[in-house]
Each structure stands twice: as C-alpha cells, then as structure tokens.
C-alpha cells in the first residue's frame, strides 16, 4: 500500500518536473526550431512542431543583413575590454578586502553592495551628457567604461569570496620556505583562485554581451553598435521575416548560453555562500 503510494508520488513528481521543464524551455526551443524552418513552415496557422525539412537559409539571411559582422565585432571588442579590465581591477580590490584589515574596510564593503543597487536606467541621462561632453558618445570606449562600473562591484564581491577561500597559511608556508612575496602570490594564490577568476570573467562577459540600453543610447550610428542593438532594430520592421529574426536571435544568444552553462554553478555559489547560517 505505502509502496504503491510512494511510486505514485514519484511518478507524479517526475511528471510535474517534466511539465515545468517543457514550459520553461519551450520559448528557447521555439526560437531555435523556427530558425531552422523554411518560410512556408513558419507562416502557417497550425504550427509545425519540428523543423523538418530543416534549412540554413534563415541563418545566411541573418548574417548577410547590414552591419551584422561589424556589430558582432564591436560586441567582441567591448566584451574583451570589459572582461580584461574588470578582472585586473577587481582582483586587486578583492585582495585588499580579503587579506588586509584596514580602516574603512566595512565602509567599502557597504559601498560595494550599495553600488550594485544604483538603478542604471536612472543614470542614463547624466551618463549621456557627461560622455557627450567628454567626446565619448558613439565610441566603444565610452560604453566600455560604463559597463566596467556596473560589472566591477559584483566581480570584487565574488572574487573576495574566492580569495578568502584560500587559506593564508599556504602563502605563509611558502614564505617560510624561502619564497618571495611575489613568488608566493604567483605560485600559490593565483593558481588557487583561477577558477574564481574564470567564473568572474564569464559573469562580466555575460553582462557586457547582453546589455542593451546603454549601448542603444551611446552608440547611434549603425555599424558602430553592438549585437543586441542590431537585434533590437530587427523588430522595428516587423510583420516581416520571423525566420531570419529567430536565426539572428539564436546567433546572439549562442556565445552567452555556451559560457553560462559552463560556469553557472560557481556564480550561484558566490551569491549564496554563507547565506544559510543560523
């Protein structure tokens, strides 16, 4: 009796799990499957559930649309600059917070958390005016600096956790064994926080790649924009080509999804570490 009830419970649970999975994943599936369908299978009143026969037409259409390659290149430049700079700056700051006790440390921690809460949307107006005075409008450098600001606090916070996870005794032992400070840093600390550096850099990657509104305001001329702005302008001539729009969307999402799936564990860990300590 109880065994039968338990099996029934298990079946019900798994069915619920499967239903939730299907509901969540369907939009993503629908994007990819539409991207591979020929036009007549897209424009039908009763939907075709599988992309059969499949075609690559939509993808070739999408990448041949004006500015795809320029904007993809711009996105890559912005992302590379943001990741590189934020990694170096955040690592230095994280070292200070994790390895030193100093006056004002608590204040800095409060600031780091508070700064993440500043609504960026509210700052677009002064940012635009400031950057236009500095002659940084319609330039990728202006966008890079702005992204850096809202990526840095989170990176510092996460990296601080990773640095604190490396016991200081290890470095001290290396010093006792005759290692220099720099040597201890390069041989002990750096290799041990490498996973943290990877996770953090991919967070910065995702933020910079996905961002839309700042790029939209600061970069006005086509060919100087980023991929998300390119994709958003796709919609303005709508009612048209859903197939190549979905192909473009798939291409835009692809790099982020790949990286994100690779590291999401570490990011979730960084956010919740120490949250449940009664």
């Amino acid at each position, binding site marked *: 009796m109880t065994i039968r009830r338990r099996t029934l419970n298990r079946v019900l649970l798994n069915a619920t799990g499967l239903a939730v999975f299907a509901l969540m994943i369907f939009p993503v599936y629908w994007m990819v499957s539409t991207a591979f369908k020929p036009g007549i299978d897209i*424009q039908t009143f009763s939907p075709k559930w599988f992309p059969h026969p499949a075609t690559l037409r939509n993808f070739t259409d999408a990448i041949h649309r004006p500015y795809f390659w320029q904007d993809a290149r711009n996105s890559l430049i912005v992302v590379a600059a943001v990741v590189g700079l934020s990694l170096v700056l955040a690592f230095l700051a994280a070292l200070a917070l994790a390895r030193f006790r100093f006056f004002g440390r608590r204040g800095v921690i409060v600031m780091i958390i508070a700064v993440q*809460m500043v609504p960026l949307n509210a700052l677009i*107006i002064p940012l635009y005016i400031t950057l236009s005075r500095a002659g940084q409008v319609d330039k990728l450098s202006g966008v890079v600096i702005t992204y850096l600001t809202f990526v840095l606090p989170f990176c510092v916070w996460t990296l601080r956790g990773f640095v604190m996870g490396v016991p200081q005794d290890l470095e001290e032992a290396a010093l006792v064994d005759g290692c220099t400070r720099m040597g201890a840093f390069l041989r002990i600390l750096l290799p041990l926080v490498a996973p943290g550096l990877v996770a953090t850099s991919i967070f910065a990657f995702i933020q910079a790649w996905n961002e839309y509104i700042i790029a939209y305001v600061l970069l006005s001329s086509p060919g100087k924009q980023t991929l998300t702005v390119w994709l958003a302008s796709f919609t303005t001539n709508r009612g048209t080509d859903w197939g190549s729009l979905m192909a473009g*969307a798939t291409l835009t999402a692809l790099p982020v999804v790949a990286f994100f799936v690779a590291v999401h564990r570490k990011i979730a860990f960084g956010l919740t570490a120490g949250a449940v300590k*009664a």
Partner: protein
Amino acid sequence: MIERAVAAPAARLRAPARRRALRLGTPYALLAPAALVVGAVLGYPLYLLVKLSFQRYGLPQLLTHHGEWIGFANYTRIFHDAQFWHVLLRTVVFTAANVSLTMVLGTLVALLLAQLGAFMRLLLTTGLVLVWATPVVVSVNIWLWMVDYEFGVANWTLTKLHLGNFVHHDWFANSLSGFGVITAVVVWGAIPFVAITLYAALSQVPEELHEAARIDGATFAQVFRRVTLPLLKPIFVILTSLSIIWDFQVFNQVWIMRDQRPTNDYYLMSIYSFVESFRVSEYGFGSAIALTMVLIMLVVTFVYVRQMVRIGEAE
C-alpha cells in the same frame, strides 16, 4: 664602535616602520583603481542627475553645456502632473505583480528541485540555466513571435484549448493584455535565478531538522512554514528586494516589445523618464523623474544592504 651600536638599532627600527607604513598603505593602493573608475563613472553622473533635476535642460542647454537653474520647478511639475501619478501607480502595480509571481513560482520550482531525483533535477536545472542565460533582447523577440497575431503559437494553442477564440487576436491592442505578455517575459526570465539560488540555499538546510519535525507529526506545509521558511528568511529578503529593484526599473522588455516607441498607456517610470529626456529633450524634467525613482528604491535598497552586511559579518 659606539656609533655603530647606536646606529644599528635605529636602522632596524626604521625598516619595520617603513614596512608597516607600506603594509598600511597597500590595501588602499589596491582599492584605488577600482574605486576611481566606479567613483568617476557613477559618482559624477549621480551628482549631475541631482543637479539636472533642478535645471531646465533642453536642446539649447545641451549644446552650450549650461543648464538653467529653476529650483524645484521640475518637482512641482511632477507633483501636478496627472500622467506622472498614473505612471507611478502603474509601475507599482506592475512591480507588485511581477515580484509576487516571480517569488511564488520561483519558490515552487525550488521546492520541486529539492524533491526530484538526480536525473530529473539535472534536466530541470539545465533548462532553467538555458533560460537564465538568454539575453533580454533575444527573449523579447521570442515572445513577440510566440504571440504574433497571425502565426503565433500562443493564439493557436489557446484556441485549440477552447479558452476562447484567439484567431488573429492582437495582444497589444489594449495595454492590460500587453502588460500580461510583458509580465510573462519578465517572470519567465526571472524564475531561474530565484529557483536556483533558493534551491542552493535549501540544500544547505540540515535534513535532520525536517526529519525531526516530521517525526513530531508535522505536515509538509507545516514543515515548510515552521522550519524551512524561518531558516531561509535572509535569502528571501535578499531575493525579494533584488526583484523589486529589478522589476521597478524594467525598461528593455517594454521598449523593444513596443517597437522602441511605446504609446503612453505603456509608460513605466523608466520609460517615462527616458521619453521625456531623449524624445522630448527635457533632460531636466526626465532627471527629476529618474531621481524620484531612485529615492523610492532607496528604501528597498536599505533593507537589502542591511541583510547583505549581516550575512557578510556572519562569515
């Protein structure tokens, strides 16, 4: 001989003193570059936002870089602006609906994750992560396609399910059903973060606590309310305040869904401020709206920061 004996301790004294000074200065030197960037790109615009909100700042002022001081005029204008109060009310209702849906559904998915076997859990987690990673611009386009009035899969499904006649139904014809779609995009995109974070927290709750409660005869609902919920309260506070802050400033979803020119029945606070600045070129008035938004959110931020600092101290 004597000289050297005196000089040596002095030198020995000087070296540690210098090292100590170096050690005292190091953390500040390490922090300086990051602080400089954040201070310059965040601090100055924040100051400018406050200043602009007291100025008339239109196209002529944009060209000459000089705002015209008008005191509280922008704020009195907001106060008497019927549109503003509408938009504020709409934003508050929108935020409340989105945050409650996100938190309730996210919690349910997290509880489900905790109950599932290893394989199903991995499958569902993978699905959630895929959704989490999808860029907002991409997900908006997907949903636009799904609710397309002609060939959208949503209209077909709802008609087939006999929930009414949705053939050629335009979801954006009235703003209420339009906001329904926008809510779907926002909540769909926000569930994974809440569910995965809560699940991670749930799995840190010692199993003995649940068992003990169940042996004492507590039902599933009672265990959740009396054991799980109190333990997870800090993380609930954090997730809820984060969601409030994110949903209160929703911009992209509305902006792109409405073809980058939303009509005023689709205005939320961030859209209203943006349109007043970049479309109407009233940067001063737009700043006043934005600053009001910041001040409203400051209350939520305070709760969040306090909770985070508490957790930081417990480490």
